[in-house]
């Protein structure tokens, strides 16, 4: 296996595992702000107990999120050094900003949150909670900014480093000028310049406009979509735990209070997500048409394109074993994809006539010609499939995400209805028990949906690491050997399996222990009581 493939697997494994945790902390941070606000506003003890319980859970999840997050930042350098060189002028900034504005805020105030129950008053504690939530959301913003730039790069130009001899003449960096003195300058390359693998030590993307790079065409859509997904995940974790308590008849008062907040947040977030997801998909249709064709398994350009619901698509192979197209075996809603792409929901008949490009025409012949000058149309058609993402895979992940999203939205709405009618805690009813049992597994569904969404986004971007600029295969480190990555990958696997086991058992213990009425939970876990006060200091809270 190549370093590139192993590094992709390693980045995939570490990112997927890491991304189990931040959606929960981001979502739960919103719940914590609500709980703490209710605590300050009503002064009821139950909100204090619940705040303490969910803060404890937050602390555990956050610690694992931090520990598993550092490997992601490191891997841009360790495994993707050529990528780091190429995009460093643009991509490094959001990561640094994330550190300065998000992580410091989140981890600093988390100390107050976890250990400050006796040290600061309720209002200060609420303030600290807001800061933690703000930090969590800031980190989402900056990492999505960085990631979105990989999908829809903007606000930059390509430039090549050249040697400038004493007489002002320019030479490539690889020219040996002997002992003659020279300086180095960066020369802008034309907009249609095609990056070659051999270029990567001397050609890079250079920032023109930070505003355009940060607010690149997909940032806002993807940010909204991801943050809402995080809220949904966090809310369903709260709902799932509360439903479990209700079913077991434990911690009933806490369960009733927290399921109410969880369902409310989930409903709002799910309904907003319908709009955000629609907008995100339309953005993909505009900016990454190849990705859209792949995730919908659309083989030919057509009007009245159908929206896939369930089924599968398969690669179609030519006589020489090369991929030539896709076979469609999906159940579709006729014309619906055209309607969604057009966004004109009020004129359905007209909207259904919208043309959607299929993989047979993507990427466009003009684009392929810039990469393969001199190739005939026939040769370009043969080359085209090498520019497609793995359509059979992303078709599944995309439709799994949608199916799960719809399921979660339905659960939230039904839950909301039952809640308003005051029936959600009538656990003697069989129907309610069955519904609560589904809610208990709902956090797993939410996690599956976020993972499937990320798989769609990142596999859908292939074969590019920077969309239609730099190929993933060219971006891997050149000095790293496959054996090194295999070794680190194996270790990541073992350590993350261990972490999964430890986390699930401890989380289960925390949940079954539940909130401790009127005290307890001053620290994140039993031995972690706050640094106690000197006798001359006041105790509050």
């Amino acid at each position, binding site marked *: 296996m190549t370093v590139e493939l192993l590094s992709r697997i390693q980045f995939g494994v570490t990112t997927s595992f890491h991304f189990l945790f931040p959606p929960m902390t981001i979502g739960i941070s919103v719940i914590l702000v609500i709980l703490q606000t209710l605590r300050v506003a009503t002064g009821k003890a139950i909100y204090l107990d619940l705040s303490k319980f969910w803060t404890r859970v937050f602390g*555990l999840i956050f*610690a694992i999120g*931090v*520990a598993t*997050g*550092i490997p992601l*930042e*490191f891997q*841009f*350098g*360790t495994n993707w*050094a*050529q990528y780091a*060189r190429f*995009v*460093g*002028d643009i991509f*490094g*900034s959001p*990561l*640094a*900003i994330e*550190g*300065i*504005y998000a*992580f*410091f*805020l989140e*981890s*600093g*105030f*988390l*100390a*107050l949150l976890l*250990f400050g129950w006796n*040290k600061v008053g309720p209002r200060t504690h609420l303030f600290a909670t807001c800061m933690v939530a703000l930090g969590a959301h800031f980190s989402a913003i900056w990492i999505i900014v960085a990631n979105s730039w990989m999908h829809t790069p903007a606000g930059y130009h390509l430039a090549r480093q050249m040697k400038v001899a004493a007489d002002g003449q320019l030479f490539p960096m690889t020219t040996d000028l002997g002992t003659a003195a020279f300086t*180095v300058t960066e020369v802008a390359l034309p907009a249609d310049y095609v990056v070659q693998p051999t270029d990567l*030590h001397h050609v890079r993307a*250079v*920032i023109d406009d930070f505003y355009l790079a940060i607010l690149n065409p997909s940032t806002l859509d993807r940010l909204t979509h991801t943050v809402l997904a995080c809220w949904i995940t966090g809310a369903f974790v709260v709902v799932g735990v509360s439903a479990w308590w209700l079913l077991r008849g434990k911690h009933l008062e806490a369960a009733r209070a927290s399921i109410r907040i969880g369902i409310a947040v989930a409903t709002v977030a799910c309904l907003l997500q319908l709009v955000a997801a629609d907008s995100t998909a339309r953005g993909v249709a505009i900016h990454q048409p190849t990705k859209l064709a792949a995730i919908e398994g659309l083989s030919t350009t057509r009007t009245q394109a159908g929206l896939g619901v369930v089924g599968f698509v398969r690669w179609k192979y030519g006589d020489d074993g090369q991929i030539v197209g896709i076979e469609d075996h999906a159940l579709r809603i006729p014309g619906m994809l055209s309607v969604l792409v057009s966004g004109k929901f009020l004129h359905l008949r007209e909207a259904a006539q919208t043309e959607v490009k299929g993989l047979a025409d993507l990427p466009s012949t003009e684009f392929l010609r810039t990469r393969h000058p001199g190739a005939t149309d026939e040769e370009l058609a043969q080359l085209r499939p090498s520019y497609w993402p793995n359509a059979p895979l992303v078709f599944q992940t995309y439709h799994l995400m949608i199916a799960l999203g719809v399921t979660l939205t339905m659960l939230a709405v039904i839950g909301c209805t039952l809640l308003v009618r005051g029936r959600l805690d009538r656990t003697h009813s069989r129907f309610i028990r069955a519904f609560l049992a589904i809610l208990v597994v709902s956090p797993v569904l939410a996690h599956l949906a976020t993972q499937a969404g990320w798989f769609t986004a990142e596999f859908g971007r292939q074969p590019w690491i920077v969309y239609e600029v730099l190929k993933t295969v060219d971006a891997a*480190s*050149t*000095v*790293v050997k496959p054996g090194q990555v295999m*070794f*680190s990958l194996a*270790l990541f696997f073992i*350590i993350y399996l261990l*972490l999964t086991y*430890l986390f699930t058992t401890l989380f289960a*213990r925390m949940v079954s222990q539940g909130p401790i009425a009127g*005290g*307890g939970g001053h620290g994140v*876990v*039993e*031995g972690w*009581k706050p*640094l*106690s006060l*000197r006798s001359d200091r006041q105790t509050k809270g």
Partner: protein
Amino acid sequence: MDLNTIWFVLVCVLLTGYAVLDGFDLGTGPLLLLVKDDSERRVFLNAIGPIWNGNEVWLVTAGGALFAAFPYVYATVFSGFYDTFMLLLFALIFRATAIEFRSQRPSRLWRSAWDLAFAVSSLTSALLVGIAIGNLAWGIPLDANHEFQGTLLTLLNPYALCVGVTTVLLFVMHANLYLILKTEGSLHARLLHWTKFTVPAYLVAFFSMNAATLLLSPHIATAIRNRAPVLVAIFVASIAVTLNILREIKHGHEGRAFVSSALSIITLMMLFGAAIFPNLVVSTPTLANSLNIYNGSATDKSLGFMFVVALIGMPIVLAYTVTIYYVFRGKVQLTDESY
């Protein structure tokens, strides 16, 4: 001062911030095994409990700043030091896990296993950070494209190991002084007694490291010739603040002793920075292939933008970091509420 120099200083400041803050909680690892009683171990862990996470953020931010300001350095060092940095990652993950999971169960076996994991991973982290710094100071083989040309064994040279050990001893000393601030009674007395070993141990390592640098490293010797007054001044200051630790302890000024220890770290980092400037990765034997603050940097536009970002952000970070340390000042006590 141009933007490249400013960012050299800023990256050094972030790394120094990491060393000063995470230094004492990395150093707490090995010291944890020196106390046997569970409640005493918990005092140690509670002393770093609320802040270790924030301290680690300094490393993340330093990494991000290095990526943003000197992407070529980031790419060369991280890919070149692949195995070292992967080990560092595993050690950091284990540390976080150990702190989090240790106290979840009262079982003695469970706790001593996590204590061992915490001590070993803390020690390894400190050692690896030191080895990385040592290699940067000593120089590594780079080709004309600034790609690392060695193997893991190249990095595990005696000089780098010497810097690694010095870092471990420095952090242990630093942790010792931090824990003095956080403890009472017999544990406190023992920690005071330990300074008689930890401070001299660091001083011996410090002198050996400097002697090795002077006698063996060709390019640092050149740097010393060029900026002798600055380097000598920092060197003398570094020894003075370290010796001052013992004096402050003797007079019972524990807070000042800790500050002196922090100053030891700061002066050591200044010594390192002043010795390698303007290089970031020295190339040996072909010095011409070195990465410096100009050929390894982002563009001026990027550096300028990030400078404004840092100028606004860092004072805010410092303000609430100081506030949070203030809130958690004072001795650790395991009260009746503790298990």
